[in-house]
């Protein structure tokens, strides 16, 4: 991945992005292990291999900015600053989970850190993100909303409805398509009329056509800084297509045997984390400092795992709480 210009981010930000990618990677690998141990039930949709998109944007946001993501949303929620132990506990169905065990892997949410939810119906969060941006615009908060989604989302109606409304209302929202080449199990190219499922649709909404290397944290970050800054200054929405690759299958149940071996090999060789490490070292960062980050992140994941495991299961009394704002679920007098 040759670069033509030096990155705009300084060493602190770049080491920060490396740390974030490692946190997302090791968190999800641990989640995978805990599934195999039977400590996590249900399903999960890992974003192993896609960490550079999450880190590049996370490093470009302000604390009060809002992020919306999908059921493949562990990394985005974590990198907004959600406590790792509470995320792990949520996957494990514990009362100490970020959603008290009521959300699970596909609905991780931490409003206090601007992680406004993981949405499990494809496309649903596209207009919701527009609405949050509309409120930011009307209230003059200066917040920017970032909405992550997969390539499969580009073929559902709400994608188009939301982009049109965001463009017409000039909303401060950046839509980020993580094009990992597969909509669930089917190659996106096989079911889409254009080559770039998001970027090639941008013109329909008067938006710039933007394709970035989603495995390059620097390139993602530079794009994020530019588009988030423009949106914050009233320049309206943007649509980014970040090309990346899912190291594993769609979900826990999917061994992803449908992918050509050489395609998988080629993309594994472009793993964003070792590539970024090499680049940092080449630009003069001490390799020992990076090793230290790796150690710290592993320790963090170990501690979060132990803390999550020791959390209690939800009290039966929690079942009928928090349907309504009064804390209960009564429907009759």
């Amino acid at each position, binding site marked *: 991945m040759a670069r033509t210009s030096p990155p705009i981010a300084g060493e602190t930000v770049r080491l920060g992005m490396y740390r974030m990618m490692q946190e997302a990677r090791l968190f999800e690998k641990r989640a995978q292990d805990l599934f195999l141990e039977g400590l996590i039930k249900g399903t999960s949709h890992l974003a192993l291999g896609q960490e550079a998109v999450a880190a590049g944007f996370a490093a470009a946001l302000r604390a009060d900015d809002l992020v919306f993501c999908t059921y493949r949303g562990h990394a985005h929620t974590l990198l907004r600053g959600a406590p790792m132990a509470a995320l792990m506990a949520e996957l494990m169905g514990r009362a100490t989970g970020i959603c008290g065990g*009521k959300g699970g892997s596909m609905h991780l949410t931490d409003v206090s850190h601007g992680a406004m939810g993981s949405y499990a119906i494809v*496309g649903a*969060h596209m207009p919701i993100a527009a*609405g949050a941006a509309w409120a930011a615009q009307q209230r003059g908060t200066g917040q920017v909303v970032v909405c992550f989604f997969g390539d499969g989302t580009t073929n559902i109606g709400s994608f188009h409805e939301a982009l049109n409304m965001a463009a017409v209302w000039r909303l401060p929202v950046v839509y980020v398509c993580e094009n990992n080449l597969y909509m669930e199990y089917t190659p996106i190219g096989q079911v889409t009329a254009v080559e770039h499922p998001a970027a090639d649709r941008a013109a329909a909404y008067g938006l710039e056509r933007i394709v970035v290397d989603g495995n390059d944290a620097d390139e993602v970050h530079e794009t994020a800084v530019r588009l988030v800054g423009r949106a914050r200054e009233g320049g309206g929405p943007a649509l980014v297509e970040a090309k990346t690759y899912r190291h594993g299958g769609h979900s826990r149940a999917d061994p992803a045997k449908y992918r050509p071996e050489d395609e998988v090999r080629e993309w594994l060789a472009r793993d964003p984390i070792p590539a970024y490490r090499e680049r940092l070292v080449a630009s003069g960062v001490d390799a020992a400092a990076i090793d230290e980050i790796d150690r710290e992140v592993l320790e963090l994941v170990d501690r979060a795992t132990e803390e999550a495991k020791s959390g209690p299961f939800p009290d039966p009394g929690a079942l009928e709480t928090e349907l309504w704002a009064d804390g209960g679920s009564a429907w*009759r007098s």
Partner: protein
Amino acid sequence: MAELTYREAVSRAIAQEMERDPSVYFIGEDVAAAGGVFKTTEGLLERFGPDRVRDTPISEQAIIGAVMGAAMNGLRPVAELMFSDFFAVCWDLIANQIAKTRYMTDGQVALPLVIRTANGGGVRFGAQHSQSVEGWAMAIPGLKVVVPSTPVDMIGLFAAAVRDPDPVIVVEPKVLYASKGDVPDGEIVDRLGSAKVLREGADVTICALGAMVPKALEAAERLSSDGVDAEVMDVRSLVPLDATTILGSVAKTGRFVTVEENPRLCGWGAEVASLVAEERFFDLDAPIVRITTPHIPLPAADALEDLAIPSVDAIADKVKKATMD
């Protein structure tokens, strides 16, 4: 005190809340410049400006998604869904997102929003613009549902809906938009979850909703000349449901009839009837009767639509039979 039409009451209700609270915004298709396809929102754009009263594209998912997102970030938005039949176009946003998000996030997300919509038949629009779909919303945990049947109730229940911290669906019977009623001056705020006894009686409880309320009242007047003293109740709020008032009335009269505009299966009356059966069985002197449309889509022709929707004659006839047992 002034006499207002129901459609005038809609715009007065929205204006009352927008005047009071600058975080109340209103969006929908043709609601601003055109004043709404039913002329229920005339004058709001002029009064509150294009930021707060806004026309949207024909994008029901975007409209409903936008009010959800806005409610998550500090507004108290109101969306108009032109016809309640269009719920089907954006049901994911309503049933999967708005209804579930507070629970799924264990209370992290509050959604103080209102969706108001024109519902029901009687205007010869045919099957895709005439359904009574309040039951769809009632069936989803996490949605509150009210159905005002008079101008004053429209204002009061809408105000309660806007001020409520949870999502509320306000269902407006479109056939009543031209109906009139007295409305007091000044601010009007009602309460969700309160049924209203409109006519007291000793022989039978008639529970009606929306456009069926005036018909039930007229039927009760007619029955009184046949010696049947009917109590008529406007349910007004399906979620929360005023079970106390309904069950109390049944305990007094011993007979229970629902009048519903919806198709037979899973109408709101089925849920209410099951409550009566479970909790007031020993107070009942006769079987419960449900009066509904047949289990069909509504036809367009007036001769057929009039046959389908419960009429005053049909209500009076069935209530009379119920009281002869």
